[in-house]
């Protein structure tokens, strides 16, 4: 009878274990679409055998652990690739916006430049025409307006980038705090010898997200705590301590600072990665570069036109007048002469009689209405290589547009590549750690059968016990 009771116990453990396993499978199936979830499985071990005289008999089975399918290499790769993906996807929206600003349609800045110099050509064919003179001034104003529009648009892109940085910072901070919390939880669970599977899954996911938005690097210490660092080495999570990032507005500017236990440090471009690097890079490097080019273009156009306009004379014998308002001198000696020229360019002339189509006469001679010599000279400026001696105004603008085009094109290619890599790595990860419904269904059958046979076994033992009971009536 003693052996039968032991067998009853063994059957009971089997029932429990199979039920537990089915529970775990159920959990796997529920999480089939959960991102970052790793498939879990029960680790079954037999109970220690008991000695029956000269031989050992097993005492059933137990679930000794629940593990998750996991591969550190792939997880790290995924985190690593997320940085590149985040960087490229962070740049793609602002670059698309820049492409819209520097478009190549029929009415971009190049057209306005052409139209302006074309109006001088028209004037040269009829130098006394007041309509032609008005058109020259209007086209000049149009050109100045176009410069203003582009400068404002660039400014707006910078502001939009700042807005998205502010919204990103909140998200990043909550993730940093969550990782620190998870560190505590994992430590508390695992110190009792259990495995914190879902907490680890969640932590890996957060680390991947942070890599994508901030380019963070992580490593896990011997206590199972994940340390998170910025690319330049500044700490974000140390043990159970989260740090916070703050976006500090300073007039039009927005800078990022890190609060680390009472100390505040600036986060420069070298301490950023991923999406925020992409955004800050466009805001602080690409757009100022384009602005400078635009300023240089505006400055060169206005000085070139002015230098010839001042030597000419208008219908009213006025001479020495500037066509465009000259750019004011920059505040610092180290600033380039063309600082803010694109923002400030404007037409100085208001009276169309003052448009200097004629060569300045030697007094007492007065301006002849048919004199078109100066108009011819100014009209020619549009086709002269005046910027650094190698570019006409048009082709300089073309260069800027191609620069934006190349950047955007490069970004599209890199983004496509990063996307492909991410998909592949994610598939690799899912192939190792993901939930396959086929697999779970088969396991389900497996453990259901296990449960059924255990039940059958128990009823057999029960019958045997009943037979024993029936011996004495």
């Amino acid at each position, binding site marked *: 009878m003693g052996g039968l009771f032991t067998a009853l116990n063994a059957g009971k453990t089997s029932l429990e274990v199979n039920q537990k396993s089915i529970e775990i499978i159920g959990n796997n199936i529920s999480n089939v679409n959960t991102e970052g979830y790793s498939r879990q499985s029960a680790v079954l071990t037999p109970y220690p055998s008991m000695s029956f005289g000269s031989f050992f008999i097993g005492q059933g089975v137990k679930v000794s652990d629940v593990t998750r399918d996991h591969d550190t290499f792939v997880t790290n790769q995924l985190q690593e690739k997320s940085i590149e993906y985040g960087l490229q996807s962070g740049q793609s929206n602002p670059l698309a916006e820049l492409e819209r600003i520097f478009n*190549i349609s029929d009415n971009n800045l190049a057209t306005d430049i052409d139209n302006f110099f074309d109006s001088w050509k028209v004037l040269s064919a009829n130098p006394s025409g007041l309509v032609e003179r008005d058109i020259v001034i209007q086209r000049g104003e149009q050109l100045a307006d176009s410069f203003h529009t582009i400068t404002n648009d660039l400014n707006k892109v910078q502001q939009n980038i700042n807005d998205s940085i502010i919204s990103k910072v909140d998200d990043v901070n909550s993730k940093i705090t969550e990782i620190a919390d998870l560190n505590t939880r994992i430590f508390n669970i695992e110190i009792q010898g259990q495995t914190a599977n879902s907490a680890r899954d969640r932590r890996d996911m957060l680390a991947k997200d942070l890599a994508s938005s901030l380019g963070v690097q992580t490593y896990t210490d011997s206590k199972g705590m994940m340390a998170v660092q910025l690319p330049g080495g500044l700490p974000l999570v140390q043990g159970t301590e989260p740090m916070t990032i703050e976006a500090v507005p300073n007039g039009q500017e927005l800078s990022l600072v890190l609060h680390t236990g009472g100390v505040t440090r600036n986060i420069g471009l070298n301490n950023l990665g991923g999406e925020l690097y992409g955004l800050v890079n466009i805001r602080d490097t690409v757009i100022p570069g384009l602005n400078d080019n635009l300023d240089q273009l505006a400055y060169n156009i206005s000085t070139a036109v002015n230098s010839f306009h001042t030597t000419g004379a208008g219908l009213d014998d006025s001479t020495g007048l500037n066509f465009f308002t000259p750019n004011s001198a920059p505040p610092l000696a180290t600033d380039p002469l063309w600082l803010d020229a694109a923002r400030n360019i404007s037409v100085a002339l208001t009276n169309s009689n003052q448009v200097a189509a004629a060569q300045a006469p030697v007094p007492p001679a007065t301006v002849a209405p048919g004199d078109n010599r100066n108009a011819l000279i100014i009209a020619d400026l549009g086709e002269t290589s005046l910027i650094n001696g190698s570019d006409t105004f048009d082709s300089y603008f073309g260069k800027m547009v*191609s620069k934006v085009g*190349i950047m955007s094109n490069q970004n599209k290619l890199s983004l496509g590549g990063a996307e492909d890599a991410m998909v592949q790595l994610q598939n*690799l990860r899912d192939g190792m750690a993901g*939930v396959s419904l086929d697999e779970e269904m088969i396991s389900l059958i497996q453990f259901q059968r296990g449960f059924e046979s255990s039940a059958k076994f128990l009823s057999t033992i029960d019958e045997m016990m009943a037979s024993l009971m029936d011996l004495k009536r």
Partner: protein
Amino acid sequence: MKVTNGTTYRMLQTNLGKISTRLEDLRNQGATGIKLNKPSDDPASIRPVLTTRSQIRSTERYLDTMGVSLDKMEATDGNLEHVENILQRVKEITINSINGAMSPADMTVFADEVSQLRQELLDAANATVDGKYIFAGYQENVKPFVENTSYDPALYDQADSATWPYIYQGDPNPTELEITPGEKLQTNLTGNDLFMGISNSVMQAGPIPPAVGYPSDAGRVDIFSVLTRVEEALRAGDIDDPAGAGGGLQLQMENIDTAADQSRRLRSQLGNRASRVDTAMMHQEDVRLDLNQILSRYQDADAIETFAAITKQETAFQAALSITAKVSKISILDYL
């Protein structure tokens, strides 16, 4: 490695996404007919496209300018023909007067006619196009030729334009227009050159003191003076006395020929320039055509190629969709 739900659907999704993005791009190309819609479509073509567009615009402007020049030249030519006819008639009158034995009354009739012709010449010299005097140089709003109120036949000096019967109020600057990049062409004639025989360079340099006026170039004459003096000679009946009134008809006969020559020479120069403009126009039309072709090569989508590519992508899209539908139909659950 195993196939999981996640991998299968991720694969289908990315592929559908890729194909539909490509299809969208191609449809955009097909709809606009332009393959260069954004700078990133082909950064290398941007500069050529912008430069070519600007060249096309300036070519169109050159064509416009040349059209204006041709109009002016034609108007000038019409006036020059008139001048030639006037000189022709004066010559006939002069020959008649020298050869035939004319009564003083006949001579007076002729003199009246020459006076009329001189008036006609003045009208031609003060001709306007579009409200502007065409023979006034840059002074297009100033009547170029007016009667010299202090004209005295006795003081007439061939070497000083201040003593001539008509004075020139324009300036010696012919209008130049740019007809092709870097090439400027003179589109009109100045009154001093055409009617007074004083070349522009002489007049631009200013009179040599103590003279107030200018002499005619060697071998050229002031047409107004010739006509005025022919009239004076006719009225005085002076046939061959160089010292008499009007210098005598014999002498003026030569001057009339010189004057006709002068007008003819300038007229043919103008004709040459007009034909230069004509060829330049033809050339610019060709250039415009070529430039448009270049522009099209850089930015236009090949319609057939685009439509073929769209069809190809649509087939791929359909295939991807039907595979997606099939995948969702196969499930282990149907077999358990």
